[in-house]
């Protein structure tokens, strides 16, 4: 299981990504950059790319981050691991991904307490309709609001 048709971000989505629009226009936030990280096959590699992502954020002196994932199932193993690595470094982190009713997290940890569910389908499932369960501006604004709250409460 990975990326289904309804959660898949097309090249057009990347070209006009609502998450980038919302975060880059928010004058309370200084957007350092966009980190792209993949989802390797074996567990050792999954852990490695998660650790590297978190270390990169620490090196950038990030006050917080939003991590989005357009897949689920197996992709959520990578996702949970990366979020944990970021959380351990005491960097506030908010997630956006697909859960609905079908894609409950296969693994989770205490840092996954603010996740925005990008499901849009009535039944909460992978509908195989392209574009249906993808991030919109409302999802992005929710994530930004969660992150601001988390950063404010972070006493680091």
């Amino acid at each position, binding site marked *: 299981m*990975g990326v289904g048709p309804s959660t898949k971000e097309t090249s057009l989505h990347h070209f006009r990504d609502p998450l980038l629009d919302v*975060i880059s226009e928010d004058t309370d936030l200084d957007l350092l950059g966009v980190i792209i990280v993949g989802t390797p096959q074996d567990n050792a590699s999954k852990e490695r790319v998660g650790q590297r992502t978190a270390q990169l954020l620490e090196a*950038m002196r990030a006050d917080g981050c939003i991590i989005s994932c357009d897949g689920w199932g197996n992709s959520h193993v990578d996702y949970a691991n990366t979020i944990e690595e970021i959380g351990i470094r005491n960097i506030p982190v908010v997630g956006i991904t697909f859960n609905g009713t079908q894609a409950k997290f296969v693994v989770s940890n205490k840092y996954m307490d603010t996740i925005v569910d990008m499901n849009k389908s009535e039944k909460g499932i992978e509908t195989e309709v392209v574009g249906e369960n993808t991030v919109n501006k409302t999802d992005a604004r929710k994530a930004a609001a969660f992150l601001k709250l988390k950063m404010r409460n972070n006493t680091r």
Partner: protein
Amino acid sequence: MDSIELRRLVVRSYHVNEVKICEKFSFNNKVLCIDNSCIAPLLEDELIKKIDIRIIKPHEHDIEINTIMDIIPISVKALGKLGSGITHTITGAYVMLTGCDEDGRQMHEFGSSEGILKEKLRLNMAGTPSSQDIIIHVDVLLKGGEVYDRHLPLAAFRACDEIISHIRGVLRTQDARSADEVHEFYDRVRMGAKKVAIVKQVAGQGAMYDNWLFPDQPSGYNGGVSIIDIGNMPIVLSPNEYRDGTLRSMD
């Protein structure tokens, strides 16, 4: 709050009212002409058996399609590299790539979207055309009997990018004054604001579970590298590099 501007990206959009199949690629008075003869050289690739280009008008979505491999904006650098300078992009028409092989295997990884277009595409999302947009439908038939790995869908992505490159050729030379919209985006430092990053976890395991980075042209294929081939390791893009089509979806 004070901000320091680092780099500027200008995106000029050119609206398309009509797309036609003609004898020559051209783009004048909001009419985009596509020359079907660009397909013939693409068939020299032994993996590609057939390519059809079909123009789908708004509200004419009651048609059967193979699985949707990607929706691709048509953009080209008029000046500079990805993330700065000037980009020309087309609005009102987007490319939809679909594909299967001669054995009827759909080009997808987990769940596929073949069927009736109007039931398989949610319009008006960030990653899909609006209900008023024209769809330039590129359907690729790939060689049957092949091992289903990356080389097969990549052949379709490559061929589709070749077709788009002809459109880029006539888009690049559009007059600045005839642009319908001009947008300016800045990579900037907002002094004193909370420093945040966006992390995008993307597919990177194999056929139709792949993403491409750093193509020569926005949302392109040529010159790019697969996230699989760079070990799925995290890569930092500036906001404008990301906005300018540095990440190309292949999943």
